[in-house]
């Protein structure tokens, strides 16, 4: 069985109607003699007057494309990684305390823990701020204006012990 018969047999099995129609089709119509010999010349005659297709010139590389082959070599890669680690450490070190992460940790502290922390670090807080917040909390001046520094501190210690969570968080 030749290839043509094989193709026809396959078609009869899969689509009998198309196999019958194929028999009614005229054979492939041939072009005039020597058509394919002459066609490339005819086409080229029209093309040669047109600009040549752009040659695939390499595009100028971007800065990162020039850098990349150097960076992916072992030693420069280790160097770049070291610099990146140092920068990350630097950024972490310089990060202010009041970051969202620090605030989240603060929210987990209990009132007693916050009070204890404030009492043991009372010198690190600005006295004016403490007075202002404590007064605001009490809605009237609690601290007499004629107290000296030691007396103010002592009085603040007493008041801090009675502050609620929200005010403590505000102070911290």
């Amino acid at each position: 069985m030749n290839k043509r018969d094989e193709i026809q047999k396959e078609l009869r099995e899969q689509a009998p109607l198309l196999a019958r129609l194929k028999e009614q089709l005229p054979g492939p119509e041939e072009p005039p003699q020597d058509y394919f010999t002459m066609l490339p010349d005819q086409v080229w005659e029209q093309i040669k007057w047109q600009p040549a297709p752009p040659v695939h010139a390499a595009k100028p590389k971007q800065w990162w494309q020039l850098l990349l082959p150097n960076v992916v070599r072992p030693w420069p890669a280790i160097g770049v990684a070291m610099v990146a680690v140092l920068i990350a450490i630097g950024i972490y070190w310089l990060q202010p305390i009041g970051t969202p992460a620090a605030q989240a940790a603060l929210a987990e502290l209990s009132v007693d823990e916050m009070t204890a922390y404030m009492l043991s670090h009372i010198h690190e807080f600005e006295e004016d701020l403490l007075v202002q917040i404590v007064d605001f909390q009490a809605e009237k001046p609690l601290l007499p204006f004629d107290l000296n520094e030691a007396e103010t501190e002592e009085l603040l210690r007493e008041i801090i012990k009675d502050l609620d969570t929200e005010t403590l968080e505000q102070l911290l």
Partner: protein
Amino acid sequence: MSHTQPSDEYILQLLRAQHSAELGFRLLMQKYQQPLYRVARRILREHEDANDVLQNSFIKVWRSIHTFAGKAQLYTWLYRIVTNEALTFLQQQKRKATQSIEAGEVPLIGQIRADEPIDGAALQARLQMATSQLPEKQRLVFEMRYFEEMPYEEMAQLLDTSVGALKASYHHAVKKVEHYFNAIEMGEL
């Protein structure tokens, strides 16, 4: 197509260098002109029309070969260009034909149902209509197998796909085309 034809990679390599572009293009035409002519001829029927379309297609290929990204096989890309050119040509002819119908001429597509048995040209036109409903890959496989009677192995080389995948595509394509003809017989179309 014989197996002594230059490879697509070699042709493209020649086309990319200014000094060998002409040779590359001539090799491309020699390799693909016959199957592409048959594609155009099937759609357009007349040799003169097929010749016009084929020449225009090759000029288009020359102008845009640098845009060929190599994602599809070269023949698939060329086939698409020729098919699009041929269909555009048909649409232009259709506009002219509309004027002829108004003048009293009967179009070929109108003869399809009226004439029994179907003559070869009308059958070709009907098959063309049926295959135009197929997805591109199935249409290409159907044309190569049904009309060109190309062995699967040769198609696999041209389209860079497996014989199994081609058999599956052809099976789906013939089923759809047959369904289309059955629908016509049942008066559904």
